[in-house]
């Protein structure tokens, strides 16, 4: 196991954002953490990457206890996160932005800048290298966020909604980029609302609702899980959906019988 959470809890005042969460991210996989708005997904990312300390529980990375380790130390160990609300160094160019991450392993400025160009090429930003980050489009900013994370040479990259705010074509362009990252041996855990992408990319899914895990398993089983459907569509919606599904199933069986 690459990253493991053991009964991790965190609350903000009276709000229990994450309760007794346990999960294990295996090596060399692309998995997803999904859930309705306010489920606590980003809090989980913050707990994993050292931006928040858990009230209870343990975080293990590569078998080492990293509970309470500051964010920059986590990055040094190979655990890097990106942000849902993109956080570029707005006054710096794309190349300089990525070089900051590259400096984690490269001391020399010219090496870091050269490495930044390589990473930019990997995510399709090569033509924008000398643009100031503040002039980028949303899609390019998302790529920059990805590139910066990647430039730290992580073993596990936590992607927080890198597809949010993109149009269908931009999403379609982004999917092979993410697949390409996994192909280079980087494990990825993504928070994502775009279900088409989750179904398309992830091998394993965790579903979080109101701070608790309600589903963990392979992506194919996700849409069949009653609890997940309930969390997304409410109890009444789930019942309606079940009815429609039953009807479809009935029709299919009828067809098979008649054939």
């Amino acid at each position: 196991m690459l990253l493991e959470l053991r009964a991790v809890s965190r609350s903000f005042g009276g709000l229990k954002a994450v309760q007794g969460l346990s999960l294990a991210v295996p090596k060399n996989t692309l998995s997803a953490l999904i859930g309705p708005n306010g489920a606590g997904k980003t809090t989980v990312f913050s707990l994993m990457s050292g931006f928040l300390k858990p009230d209870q529980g343990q975080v293990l990375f590569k078998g080492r206890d990293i509970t309470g380790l500051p964010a920059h130390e986590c990055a040094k160990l190979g655990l890097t996160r990106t942000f849902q609300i993109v956080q570029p160094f707005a006054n710096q160019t794309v190349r300089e932005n990525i070089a900051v991450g590259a400096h984690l392993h490269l001391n020399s400025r010219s090496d870091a800048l050269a490495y930044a160009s390589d990473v930019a090429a990997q995510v399709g930003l090569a033509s924008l290298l000398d643009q100031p980050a503040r002039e980028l489009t949303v899609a390019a900013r998302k790529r920059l966020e990805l590139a910066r994370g990647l430039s730290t040479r992580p073993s596990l990259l936590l992607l927080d909604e890198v597809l949010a705010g993109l149009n269908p074509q931009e999403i379609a362009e982004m999917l092979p980029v993410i697949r390409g990252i996994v192909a280079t041996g980087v494990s990825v855990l993504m928070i994502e609302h775009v279900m088409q992408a989750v179904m398309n990319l992830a091998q394993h899914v965790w579903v979080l609702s109101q701070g608790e895990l309600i589903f963990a398993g392979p992506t194919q089983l996700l849409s069949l899980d009653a609890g997940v459907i309930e969390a997304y569509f409410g109890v009444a919606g789930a019942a309606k959906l079940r009815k429609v599904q039953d009807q479809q199933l009935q029709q299919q069986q009828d067809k098979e019988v008649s054939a």
Partner: protein
Amino acid sequence: MKDLRSILLFAVLVGLVPVFSHSGVLLNWLMMALFATLLSQAWNVLGGFGGQFSFGHAVFFGTGAYVQALLQLNAGLNPWVALGGAVLLSALLGAGLAGVSFRYGLKGSYFALVTLAFAEVFRILALSASFTGGGVGLMLPLSESFTNMQFSSRAGYVLLVLSWVVLALLITAYLRHSRFGAYLQAVRDNEDAARALGVNPFAVKCWATVLSAALMGAGGAFYLQVFQYIDPNLVYGSHTSIAALVGAIVGGMGTLWGPVVGAMALELLAELTRNLFGELPGINLVIYGTLLILIMVFLPRGLVGIIDRWKAKSKTARSSLSAAKTTNPATDPGEWSTSGEPTTQPRGDGDAA
């Protein structure tokens, strides 16, 4: 490399002035302008590159001046040796101030207020303590010789402060082309994003404060050597803090030449207003204030920013000429969006679920 060449050129050109001119007015102006430049450069390391706006840089300046004086008067040290102590102790004070402030996550106006408070506390301490001479101040015996770091002509002081300015330029050039400098600017632009990329903001900000404080302490020691007299209001007073930050802001924060251009321009302005308005007390501060507001509003990137904007404009004009047929050059950032002010970046909240 380009930076090093321009620094060398600057050093040679300014260094030649006392060789060719013996005009007391010119050399005195040059000395004061270089002195103001040094203070602005010191502030620029922390404020311009680190985005931590200090309002009390006089605390390091005054400490440098007092240590320089006390080591000579009480310990009988040679001023060149004392200089080492002055710089070192100012740097240590910087480490202490930064350690306390950044440990508790002080940012923006809170950090500015804490530095202001530090300077005031040191001013009052210096007024009331006996070993600092209290309000009477400290006087250095006049003894002009190179070994005493006291020069009979302004030329010696010009060369002395020029060497500090060149050192500060080299440090600034290092910030522009090194990992530490990249980390410092990353922390300035977005601390959370920097942390995610493996940057330790606390350590980076502390080291920047140490560098900044050391240069400021050198400025204080220089002041003592020139005027041979200090008192708490002179060296811990807010006018020193203001001079340091105004020069950097007017010239252009976070740039190599901004503090040089800014401090020199202001010193020229001060000279002109002195001639125009006579010795009307405080007139230069009125002009400082007005200018600061105007620059903040119309030139957030300072005087150096004008050149950059002009360069960018001629570049986009050229590229849009060549690309005129295909696309519209909509990438022109326009006058206002080129804001170089580092602290106004939106800080998204990574903790929201």
